[in-house]
């Protein structure tokens, strides 16, 4: 059962990922990303990580990709792009190199670990002990061991929001304000 779900979801996730890269229309690419995120959410469910699955949908599909779509629609970049011209020289070669490097690292990691060799599988997560374990365990760890990291992330997000607001608002200098008043 788990294997069947995994195979179906893996196909969805990979198809979505390919769609993100290959779709010519940015909106279609964003929608493929949503497909990938849903597949991932079901994979989390498959691992009995209910909370992560729900948060995956709420945060990534519900907020972040919606924001992507917003930007695409508001900026009017929802046309087919001309891909024959490279926007930054050497960008594609570099991207291919970095991609291959990452892929190589991942393969090397799997080959060097015990999992690939059929050895024992190391469990990195905590055991599920009680009924509402998911949420409770995450909360326990988040608000004890990692509370500084958690707070720092929160502060970082707040700062970035404030920064975005400041950058999007053009504050007039004093002399400009007086000029407009004279014009009136």
């Amino acid at each position, binding site marked *: 059962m788990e294997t069947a779900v995994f195979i179906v979801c893996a196909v969805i996730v990979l198809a979505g990922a390919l769609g993100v890269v290959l779709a010519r229309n940015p909106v279609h690419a964003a929608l493929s990303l949503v497909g990938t995120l849903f597949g991932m959410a079901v994979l989390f469910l498959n691992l009995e990580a209910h909370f992560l699955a*729900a948060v995956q949908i709420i945060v990534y599909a519900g907020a972040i990709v919606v924001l992507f779509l917003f930007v695409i629609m508001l900026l009017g970049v929802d046309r087919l792009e001309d891909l024959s011209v490279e926007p930054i020289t050497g960008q594609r070669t570099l991207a291919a190199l970095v991609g291959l490097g990452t892929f190589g690292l991942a393969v090397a990691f799997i080959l060097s670990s015990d999992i690939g060799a059929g050895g024992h599988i190391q469990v990195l997560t905590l055991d599920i002990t009680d*009924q509402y374990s998911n949420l409770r365990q995450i909360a326990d760890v988040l608000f004890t061991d990692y509370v500084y990291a958690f707070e720092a992330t929160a502060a970082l997000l707040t700062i970035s929001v404030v920064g975005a607001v400041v950058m999007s608002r053009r504050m007039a200098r004093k002399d400009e304000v007086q000029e407009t008043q004279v014009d009136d």
Partner: protein
Amino acid sequence: MTAALGPSVFGLDPLYIGGVGWAEVLITLLKVGVAFAVLLVAVMLMIWFERKLISDMQNRIGPNLAGPFGIFQTLADGIKLFFKEDLIPEQSDRLVFKLAPYLSLVPAFLVFAVVPVGGDFNGGDGRVSLFGHETFLQVSDPPVGILLVLAMSSVAVYGVMLAGWSSGSKYPLLASVRASAQMVSYEAALGLSLAAVLLKSGSLSTNQIVFEQSVWNWNLWVTWVVPMVIFLIAATAELNRPPFDLVEAEQELVGGFHTEYSSIRFALFYLAEFMNTITMSAIVVTLFLGGPNGPDFTTVGWLSGLLWFFIKLMLFLFAFVWLRATLPRFRYDQLMDLGWKLLIPLSLGWLLVLASYDVAGDRGWNRAAAVIVMLAIMAALAGLLALALRAARQRRELDPQGGFA
């Protein structure tokens, strides 16, 4: 997958405890089928109810020809829509245009799956016996039940957004940008007011939330009314119902995000809209009014729960129609001000007050003092917020072009 090992993928329903066989699969299918059919019929009746009620409030008669009291009017309208020509605009993105109505409809259905519609909560934990199997009267009881509601309401944004964009026309696009901004903003207030309920119930499972409220321990007064008011306002905005129906402000936007839709695709949006009204009312009942809780006034155990749920549901459905008949539409900036500058800070502050009350109880401090201190902190923060808003307004008046370029 053994159900004995904590929560299974299927949730906490006692139906699956002894393993899953044919009987369990059939009962689940039956529940899904019944929920589906009941929702469809409920939507039909809801549309009729709304039209009839609003005509009464406006001194009109309303639909009165199809069937007794015009009760089959919706059915007639549905059949008419079904047989109309299905138009797809030339400039549209065909694939997304066809996909969007379903993205609206499916979440509306799915939310209802976690609502416990009945069961005995007077001493029991809501179990009923169905063909000799113990189960809850809800399609599913996932351990993250209430998060599913939030997730589905955030997925519903896609339906609106993509419908407007894919139409390839100006007004639907404007409407959909407006609508999705509204829905995303109010989702925050919705989630934060929910946090108060979760704090008191200590669980995300809807069945557990209802169980914690059993015998008059309703969250409405356990959380001191404010979260429910915030939730109701945010839910109305999330549903795009009046007075927050800027999405289909006819004077400004022709018809709203579904201007270019016709025939059955339009019907799907219409269906989703009314279905969302019903499911959201059901969620409010579940979260704040104890779901099927209430004194047993029948001799049959399971019937009273269903009846109580129905009575409470009707209360909110009536209130939604009443609001529509009474209130004028909000202006867009008023809507955003209400959401971001009032509802979100207030729900956060209220969470602080409730949490301090609980912590004071645990530590043996004076609870009243804790609450008063928290209220004082809230008042101070509200004062700061008001000052900041005033400074921003003054700056704007000095330099009207200084905003978004």
